[in-house]
C-alpha cells in the first residue's frame, strides 16, 4: 500500500480516480491546483505523485514536477516517482513532461489497467 498524492482539477476524473486508487489498496491525498500540490508534497511525504498537466493557477503539472525535483535536491529524501496525466498527445509535450522530471506520462483517455500497472512498476 502506498500514499499517492493526486493533483487533478476535474471533479469527475478526481472522484473516480480516488475510488480506483483506494480500491487498489492505496491511500490518497487530493489537491486541485499546483500550489497546493507542492505544499501537500512537503507536508504529507507521498510515495508517488500523480499530476494532471493542465491544472488551474500559476503552477501547472510540469512546473510542479520541476519544483518537487528541486525540493528533493535540497532535502534528504529519495526521488519520488511522478506520473503526469494529460490530454496532450504531442511528442514534444511528452518530452517536456519527461524533461521536467516526470517518470511516466499517460495521455487521456488512457487505459485504466495501464495506469494501475504503471503505478505498480513505479512503486516497485
Amino acid at each position, binding site marked *: 500500500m502506498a500514499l499517492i498524492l493526486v493533483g487533478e482539477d476535474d471533479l469527475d476524473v478526481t472522484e473516480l480516480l480516488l475510488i*480506483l486508487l483506494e480500491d487498489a489498496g492505496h491511500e490518497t491525498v487530493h489537491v486541485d491546483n499546483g500550489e497546493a500540490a507542492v505544499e501537500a508534497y512537503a507536508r504529507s511525504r507521498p510515495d508517488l505523485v500523480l499530476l494532471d498537466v493542465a491544472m488551474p493557477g*500559476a503552477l501547472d503539472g510540469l512546473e510542479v514536477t520541476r519544483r518537487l525535483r528541486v525540493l528533493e535536491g535540497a532535502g534528504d529524501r529519495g526521488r519520488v516517482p511522478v506520473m503526469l496525466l494529460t490530454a496532450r498527445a504531442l511528442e514534444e509535450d511528452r518530452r517536456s513532461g519527461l524533461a521536467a522530471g516526470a517518470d511516466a506520462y499517460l495521455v487521456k483517455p488512457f487505459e485504466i489497467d495501464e495506469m494501475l500497472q504503471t503505478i505498480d512498476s513505479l512503486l516497485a
Partner: protein
Amino acid sequence: MTRVLVVDDEPQVTHALSRALSRQGYDVLVAADGERAVDLAATSEPHMMIVDLSLPGLNGLEVIKRVRTWSQCPILVLSGVTQELAKVQALDAGADDYLQKPFGLDELHARLRALERRAAPAEETSGRHDFEGLQVNLVARTVEVGGAEARLTPTEWRLLEELVTHPEQLLTHRWLLQRVWDSSHGDETRDALRAHVRSLRAKIGDDAHAPRFIRTESGAGYRWVGVARTAETVLPDWGGSVTGEQDAAELAGVGTRELVHELNNALTAMRMAVQLMRMSDGEVTEDSAAMRASVLERLDGLAWRISVVAVALESRVGDRRGDDVGSDPGR
C-alpha cells in the same frame, strides 16, 4: 519575505508607505535621496523598488538607469501630474509601471502584486494564451476570436506578440516601435503604430473606448489588460443542473484545444467508471451497490457532458468547412 526599496525624499510619504507595506507583509527599506537609493539597491538587492522621480541630487530617472545596468528587479515610479515627459522617460529607461500622485493604497498594492507576478512568471511551454473570447497561440501563430480564426498581418502579429507576452505592463510608444519595427521613432511611425493598433483591435474584437484587451495609456503607450482564463473560469459547472443549450452557448468562446481537453477528461472519467463497474460486478454488499448507483449516475452525467462538448465541436467543423470553400479559388 519580499523586500521593497522605497525611494522618496518626503518623510510623510516614506513613513506612510513603510507602514502600509509592512502591514501587507513586505520588508521595507527606505532611501531619501538618489545616491543612497543606488547604494541600497546594490547592497540589499531588493525584490522591488518604488521610486519617486523628484529627488534631490541624483534624480529618479538616473537612479533607474543606474540600477538597470545590473538589476532587473521590478521598478514602480511615483510621479506628479505635471511630469508627463519625465514619466515617459522613466518608463523608457527601464521602469515597469507608474503611479500618479496622489494615489490610493489599494491601487499601490494591486500594482505591486502585478509586478511580483510578472517578476516570477509561470513558464509558458505551449505558447498558448487564452482570454475571454480570444485565444492566441504564439507557436502555431493562430488567433481565434470567438472560435473563428482571425488573419493578422506580420506587423499586427509582432504587435500582438509583444502585448500578450507583457501582460498588465505599460509598453511605451518608443519601446513598441523599437520592438515591432526595429526602428527609431518619429511622428510618422508613431502614427503608423496607432493605425496598426486600431486595425489589430478591430480584428480581435476590441473597443478602444471600453477595452477588454488593449488599453491606451494617454501620451505614454499601450497596456495589455486581457484577463487570462483558467480551466476553472471557462467551463460550465458540470456539477450543477445542465440545460444543454445553455451549456453549448457557454462553450462558444472556449478554445478548440480546451474543448478537446474537456472531452478527454470526460472520456477518462467514463473509462474509470466502467472499470469500477466491472470490478464490482457480482459483489452484493451494500457498499458496492451504493458505489454502483453513484457511478451510474456519474456515467449518465458524463455522457451528457460529452454530448454538449461534441455539439460545440461539431458547429466548429461546420464553420471550418465553410471557410475552406470560401478560400479555395478552384471551387
